[in-house]
């Protein structure tokens, strides 16, 4: 069967919710961080799907979306670099990456 736009959107939706569930449930900060990247990639998938399926007047797919996908990927990379640096610094200071331990700031 030919893959329509809805299939891609379904997959990206699933990916997004899996990523979000990961952020909510997992204990380790690094795993949470990975799930966040997962959500970003879900957005990439749906972007590419949209640009592929609404073909412009001249028969070529609309390239704006794909430009945005590249930006998303680069930004995600930058975010990971900075994020991991912070997590490492936290580990060095507190010897833990578990989310329950870092709750000194409250109320």
């Amino acid at each position, binding site marked *: 069967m030919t893959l329509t736009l809805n299939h891609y959107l379904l997959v990206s939706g699933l990916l997004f919710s899996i990523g979000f569930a990961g952020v*909510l449930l997992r204990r380790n900060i690094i795993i949470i961080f990975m799930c966040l990247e997962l959500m970003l990639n879900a957005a990439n998938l749906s972007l590419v799907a949209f640009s592929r399926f609404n073909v412009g007047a001249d028969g070529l797919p609309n390239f704006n979306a794909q430009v945005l996908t590249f930006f998303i990927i680069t930004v995600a990379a930058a975010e990971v670099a900075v994020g991991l640096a912070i997590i490492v610094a936290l580990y060095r200071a507190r010897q833990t990456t578990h989310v329950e331990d870092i*709750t000194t700031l*409250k109320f």
Partner: protein
Amino acid sequence: MNNNEIIPWFILLNPLITAVLILFVFRKNHGTAATVSTMSAFFGLVGSLCAFTLAPTHTLVLWIDIPGLQIPIGVQLDHLSQVMLLVVTGIGFLVHLYSTVYMEHDESKARFFGHLSLFMFSMLGIVLADNFAMMFIFWELVGVSSYLLIGHWFTRDAAGKAANKAFMMNRIGDFGFMLGILMLWSTAGTVTFKGLEAATGTLTTNPMFLTAAILLVFCGAMGKSAQFPLHTWLPDAMEGPTPVSALIHAATMVAAGVFMLARIAFLIGLSPAAALIIAWIGAITSILAALMATQQDDIKRILAYSTLSQLGYMVMAIGLAPDPSGGPAMFHLFTHAFFKALLFLGAGAVIHALHHEQDIWKMGGLSKHMPKTTVTFAIGTAALTGFPLLAGFWSKDSILAAASEKSTPLYIIGLCVAVLTAFYMTRLFVVAFLGKPRTEAAHHGHDCPARMTVPLLILAVLSVIAGFVPEKWFFSAHQHFHWNIAIPATIAFAVGTAIAFKIYSGKDKDPIRVSAFRNKFYLDEIYGAIVAGTQDVLAYIANAVDSLISGIVRLAGMAAWGVGFLFRLLQFGNVQGYSFVFGLGVVGLIWFVVFK
């Protein structure tokens, strides 16, 4: 403003200037204060004597002048006010003269004379007023000066309470008075008496309204002239010095109510229903007061109740025969002022001589040592009780004549009051002056110095001749002497005097004890209960409700703080918790927007 228009202004403002001078300049030196005040009273008397001869004048200054409301301060010198001027300034001067001796050793004499002049100013203001608003202004000023004078010896609690009570009763009366003025003004469009006279057409369109307005205005008179419901303050006002009682609570202030009713007699004439009610209230007051007077022991209280009773007479007269030039009421007011002032001053002389002893059962046999006072007091009593050919006889006779024409029950009440008056006055005279002295102080009572007895003599003479004033002073229509009234009145006088003479001559204590009369029909206690019941209870409830309202306000503040405290718990520190709430927020928002 030619010279004979200046005189009434001079009469009005002269006591004010003296009062200001005394209260602010001569606060310390008492001697000069007394003389200045007495001189100003004398000039007032001279002024009103000249004013008596003048033609009626009416000059005014606009006090408040805004479109829709013109309140003038005017001086209306017509027949009615000329007579009243004579009474007020005459007795005023005599009382001033009298109190220079009576208040000799009072440490705040200057303050006394200052307040006395203030009273003269306010009283003259009422007499000369040409409109309701100005009359209301001086009405309140008279109330305040009586408050100040009653409370002269303010260190005594009784004086303070009596002064408060007097002022409150007047204030309740003024409430009705102001409401009446408002009703009349809103219909007639003007406050001046002349304007009201011109506007009688519009006033009579709604008779019910007119009756209500007149009765409300009468309410003011009730407060001031101590009529039935609002009369309990007058006996307590005896706490003040005796000259004050003589001037204010016998001759002038209490008569202001009657004078005001005379001033608006043309209105009362328009509504017979109101006139009848006024007459009945006067009658009730006089009979009640007369009954109460029979059982009092304090000399000043007996005279106070007798004043109450005579005032009831005058109000009854106004109700029965509202005559623009005064009628029987003003005639009786004129004569009553003289002999009641005489009686009070006489009583003052007795009290002064017996070093502030006021209970008649502790006096007795004063006639031996105080001949002049006794003679003058006798003349005064005779005039009051209606001894033939004396002042009281003529004026009471004219009232009873008016009563007999209009309504026989009032006539019968009038006769009973005449009997009772004769009874209690003779009782007083017999117990205090005749018989043998009961106490040591009564033994060496002596006549007072000249400046006290001279006023007594003058007043005695006046009490005799006051009855023979020309008719046109008080009556617009011709009055013929009616025998069918004079005879029953004299019989009543004779009966009352005889009974009292027989019962009280030679007794050491009061043979008749009627507790109802003695403690004034328990009216004071009833009023106290009413005030305590309504006002204090309501005040307590109001205060509780008010603290409830401020409680609610504080509660609102605390509730906000509490909610804040709960919201604060949302920040429990765990990042995953935050992202959970974040997710919840997203899902909630989308559900709210997309699906609802």
